């Protein structure tokens, strides 16, 4: 099976990923307030991860069912981890 796969879209995605990375670094350079910075960075990272999965890992070109099998459950579990955070700082002894 041979098929001609165009390079252009993938090169564009690479360019975009590089630009988004530069944007992240610029945020760090200007010392944006931490809360804003964290939000922005996570947003950008999720965007980058999305592009990597969609294009480089081809998920966009697979059956939609694969996406449904893999992504929602994983994201759900990771979001659940946030439930740990209210306990951060509890039960820690200080000093010594």
């Amino acid at each position, binding site marked *: 099976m041979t098929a001609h796969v165009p390079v252009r879209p993938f090169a564009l995605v690479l360019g975009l990923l590089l630009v988004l990375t530069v944007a992240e670094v610029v945020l760090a350079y200007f010392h944006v307030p931490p809360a804003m910075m964290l939000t922005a960075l996570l947003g950008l990272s999720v965007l980058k991860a999305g592009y990597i999965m969609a294009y480089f890992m081809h998920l966009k070109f697979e059956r939609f069912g694969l996406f449904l*099998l893999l992504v929602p*459950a*994983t994201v*759900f*579990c990771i979001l*659940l*981890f946030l*439930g*740990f955070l*209210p*306990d*951060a700082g*509890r*039960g*820690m*002894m*200080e*000093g*010594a």
Partner: protein
Amino acid sequence: MSEPAAVPVHHAPRGFVRRYIFSTDHKVIGLQYFFLALFSVLVGMLLSLAMRYHLTNPDAKVRLFEMLWPDGAAGGLMTPELYLSLMTIHGTIMVFFVLTTAPQSGFGNYFLPLQIGAEDMAFPVLNMLSFWTTFLALVVLLAAFFVEGGAPLGGWTAYPPLSAIPAAGPGQGMGMTLWIASVGLFCVASLMGAINFITTIIDLRCTGMTLARMPLTVWGWFVTAIISLLAFGVLLAAAVLLLLDRGAGTSFYVPGGLIVNDRLLDHKGGSPLLWQHLFWFFGHPEVYIAILPGMGLVSQVLSVFARKPVFGYKAMVTAMLAIAVLGFVVWGHHMFVSGMSPYSAIAFSVLTMTIGVPSAIKTFNWIGTLWGGSIRFETPLLFAAGFVSLFVAGGISGIFLGQPTLDLYLHDTYFVVAHFHMIMGVAAIFGIFAATYYWFPKMFGRSMHSALGKAHFYLTFIGVYLIFVPMHSVGLAGNPRRYPDFKEFEFLAELGGAHTFISLAAYFTAAVQLLFLANLFWSMWKGRPAAANPWEATTLEWTVASPPPHDNFGGVTPQVHQGAYEYSVPGRSRDYVMQSEP
């Protein structure tokens, strides 16, 4: 497009080693898992008998203990540390190497490909690797008994900081390290298994085997594999961090200012609560990993022996999926006493209660399946019905424990022990028994003795209730769990009688299992030869010889035309229609 290749007629490898030891045949691997679990359950049971004996006779000097553990039981007198190490290995072995291994890896491996009409699992070599990794994990775990200091003391939950500090006790040195290594290996093996199961179910169903025609057993294995895939990766990471705390001097789980054995530790900055979160994030899904395959099997068996379609097939599948999702959001109910915010506790409590809904749906549907059926009282049916009974009995105590206010009192008492033994321990074991009696003819080509099987059921059923019902009361009276000796406590003095009763019931129940062992091994060689379909069931494994040929369907890919529960179909000559019948 990759179509599945035509199935060639395969022969089993000739050499003994390739055929029975490093085999890639899912049936051989299934049996390997089965016997690994059988060995484990015997070890686990013997440990529990030693514990029960010690609890009721704390001052007894037992030669056998001294022979087995010269350090822990010098002069035959069991030290508290030895007691705790027996408890740890008992729990770990039972949870991981019995309840996680037998229903999913054992029966799942053997019957999943057969039930969906496949020649083997999707990744036979991976399958073999995952068995041998599990085997290695078991060896490493048992090795903990033989190293300096013996096995660890912290129970199957291994809470830090003590589990993170080698100096914390005799078993917390090398023994604890081995325990963590074993659990880590087990995680890897389970992940390999999960990948294999999911891929097999998605890719290798034969023509006509739509999702809605899959037997509920297959759904049980499928949902369990998905849970495993999501949960074991978390435990693996948590275990690696614990290992680093012990070996590399990090302090992920160790707070500052801790004094152990009169020595101030260097560690600082970590959080023991973090382990509790990670462990239970895995731990609660894990209890469903143990029970879901049993749920599938019970649905199957009840339908076969009631000669009726499963009541509410779709509701059963939906309930399993709902349990899987909800199982991930309730881990906090194990941490009510950890000092968590009361608001989190309420959230976890409410979510925990909602699991009751799918659980109740399943229970009602099981009863609905039996209702009005022409029931054949064979041993598998009895054990399946026993499963339902135990599941309900254990679920009700769960509702108590799910209330934060009640749990403040009940946590770490024998009430919890009774709860999880009823629902996870014994119910899942009943599922395993049902599966063994049900599939034995297919696996070994012979039948198990029926009267002996029934006797085994009735005596075990009575026995486990005799053990665990009084255990609830002992817990309600405030008896703490994980204590080697109760006579130090005045308020527990009057519970001595109850404890003696529980121990006697335990010896009785353990003795009854000899019936099972005798039946199992006797029938393997001497049992009545079994027909291909002795129970008149509809699923594909019953279309092939008993035991099935090496390539399952002899090179012909089966085709499926029916759902899995076509019993008592009007207008047919027989009261059932095989899935492969047009």
